[in-house]
């Protein structure tokens, strides 16, 4: 009895040691929490004129985080299971985290520049707290290697998202938040239910353990399929992919620009990472990922692109476009070989930059005209030429044409898909390839609308011609420049990806 207790105590000691060891790896998350608390405290302590302080704190925390992450980034990190397998730290995850931090930072910048709402974002802490919460959740999503942790982190992201949507005044916002929440809650309930089955099938929540994998392999295909598919549904919800994409246009339309920017990037990419995790531990099972994801990708591209054609509102259009892009990423994910992973990550990062730039620039126009309806873009090419050109470049990139990185992303992606078809001969991959290319053509129709309106149409509204330097030009350039750079030297980034060992 005593021996057992001793043993247990020893075990506990070891455990505690490993926990403290693990804490060291969690410094980004801890920084976030600290930042969150700082903002909160600042909000509580000071009464008036808190904006500057809150903004300063949040921006400096994020900047610090970004710099620190970049500096400490090691490409070929050994994947480490921490917290008794709850999370796994890997270079890939770290890379994604850098992307998330960057996005969040930019969202802050956008918030600060927003004409309409700048006050609102920083006047009290909720928005930032939710944002930090979302970021934290996303960080954890990339690290989770346990069903429990996956669920918890996804919920953190979700709830933060609901809050972000619902915060602030406005009828549309609360409506969207409610819908988002109900939809999301239903989706996560489905996922949870699926997880409970997976647990039942394997007896383990840790998806990296042998028990889990053995259990999965032993499971009856029918049940397994349904269970995994239910879990997949939750991830697809975060990814905003077909068929769980329906919420996104409404939410995008009603949420403020910085929030949407975060929504369109962070949860999506985190979900991609979770998907990688799920696939890697269920690859050997009867669940035919190629088939499932193939169909989802085809459906997503088609619905996303074609619905986008219909839109008259830049944000809604970008919502559908992001559905389509999610589908493109899925088509990279479904290959699940080294190449597939790399091209997906490449695509994801290009997507990140493109979307940041797109939303940023659209906000610039929104600031000028007060609307994101297509009609308001008419003739702005004349009054704000530089910004319009930047937006044009981004649209080209989103379409996937040279000489911007969107082209490389699509090129590599399709190459990988093509190669995937050649090496496996799987018919569904071929269809994904074909649909992907067709959809690229389709996508042009709506992406080109914005430049078309900007340059070819004349607007009714009188906006004085902007000449000379504006800060937003610098930021826009800062965002667009990488698109060119990564087109001309995509090897820089791909080499980096090459050196990363993607372990999930």
């Amino acid at each position, binding site marked *: 009895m005593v021996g057992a207790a001793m043993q247990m105590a020893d075990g506990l000691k070891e455990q505690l040691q490993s926990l403290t060891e693990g804490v060291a790896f969690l410094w980004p998350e801890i920084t976030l929490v600290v930042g969150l608390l700082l903002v909160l405290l600042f909000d509580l302590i000071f009464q008036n004129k808190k904006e500057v302080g809150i903004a300063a704190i949040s921006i400096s925390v994020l900047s610090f985080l970004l710099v620190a992450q970049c500096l400490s980034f090691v490409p070929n990190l050994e994947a480490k299971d921490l917290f008794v397998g709850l999370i796994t730290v890997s270079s890939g995850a770290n890379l994604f985290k850098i992307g998330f931090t960057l996005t969040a930072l930019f969202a802050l910048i956008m918030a600060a520049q927003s004409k309409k709402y700048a006050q609102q974002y920083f006047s009290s802490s909720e928005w930032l707290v939710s944002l930090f919460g979302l970021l934290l959740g996303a960080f954890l999503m990339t690290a989770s290697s346990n069903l429990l942790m996956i*669920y918890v982190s996804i*919920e953190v992201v979700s709830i933060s998202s*609901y809050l972000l949507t619902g915060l602030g005044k406005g009828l549309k916002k609360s409506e969207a938040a*409610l819908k988002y*929440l109900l939809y999301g809650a239903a989706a996560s309930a489905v996922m949870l239910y699926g*997880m409970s089955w997976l647990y039942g099938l394997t007896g*383990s929540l840790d998806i990296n353990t042998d028990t889990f994998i053995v259990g999965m392999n032993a499971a009856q295909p029918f049940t397994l399929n349904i269970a995994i598919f239910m879990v997949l549904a939750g991830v697809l919800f975060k990814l905003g992919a077909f068929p769980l994409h329906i919420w996104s246009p409404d939410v995008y339309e009603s949420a403020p620009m910085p929030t949407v920017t975060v929504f369109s990037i962070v949860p999506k990419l985190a979900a991609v990472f979770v998907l990688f995790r799920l696939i890697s531990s269920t690859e050997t099972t009867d669940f035919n990922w190629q088939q499932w994801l193939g169909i989802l990708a085809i459906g997503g591209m088609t619905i996303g692109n074609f619905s986008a054609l219909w839109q008259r*509102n830049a944000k*809604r259009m970008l919502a559908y476009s992001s559905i389509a892009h999610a589908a493109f990423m899925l088509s990279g994910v479904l290959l699940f070989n080294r190449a597939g992973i790399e091209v997906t990550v490449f695509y994801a990062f290009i997507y990140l930059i493109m979307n940041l730039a797109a939303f940023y620039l659209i906000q610039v126009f929104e600031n000028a005209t007060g609307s994101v309806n297509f009609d308001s873009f008419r003739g702005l090419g004349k009054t704000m030429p530089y910004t319009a050109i930047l937006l044009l470049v981004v649209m080209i990139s989103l379409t996937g044409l040279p000489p911007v990185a969107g082209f490389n992303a699509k090129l590599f992606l399709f190459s990988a898909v093509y190669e995937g078809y050649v090496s496996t001969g799987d018919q569904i991959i071929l269809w994904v390839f074909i649909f992907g290319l067709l959809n690229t053509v389709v996508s042009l129709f709506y992406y080109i609308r914005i430049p078309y309106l900007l340059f070819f149409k004349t607007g009714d509204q009188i906006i004085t011609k902007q000449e000379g330097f504006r800060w937003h030009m610098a930021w826009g350039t800062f965002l667009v420049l990488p698109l060119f750079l990564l087109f001309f030297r995509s090897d820089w980034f791909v080499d980096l990806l090459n050196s990363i060992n993607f372990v999930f």
Partner: protein
Amino acid sequence: MLLLGALMFCVGLFVVFTRKNAIMVLIGIELMLNSANLNLVTFSRFDPQALQGQIFSLFVITIAAAEAAVALAIVVKVYKYFKTSDLDKINSMKG
């Protein structure tokens, strides 16, 4: 037991589909979550590590609570705007 879980889940789903009232929908979602809990605890009985399922369900309960709180806050806010909590009337967006 699993069947009961399945039943709960599906009834929850049914409620989510069919009831117009936002709060009823929330009730449905709670049912769905609870059904998952039921599964987890059931399986947990066979777990050599004994605890995973139970702990998971503990977290689920917590999260459900948080979610419910947020949800109700939003419902209340929506009610202020729309003077109703019927979901089919809460509709200002089209597209």
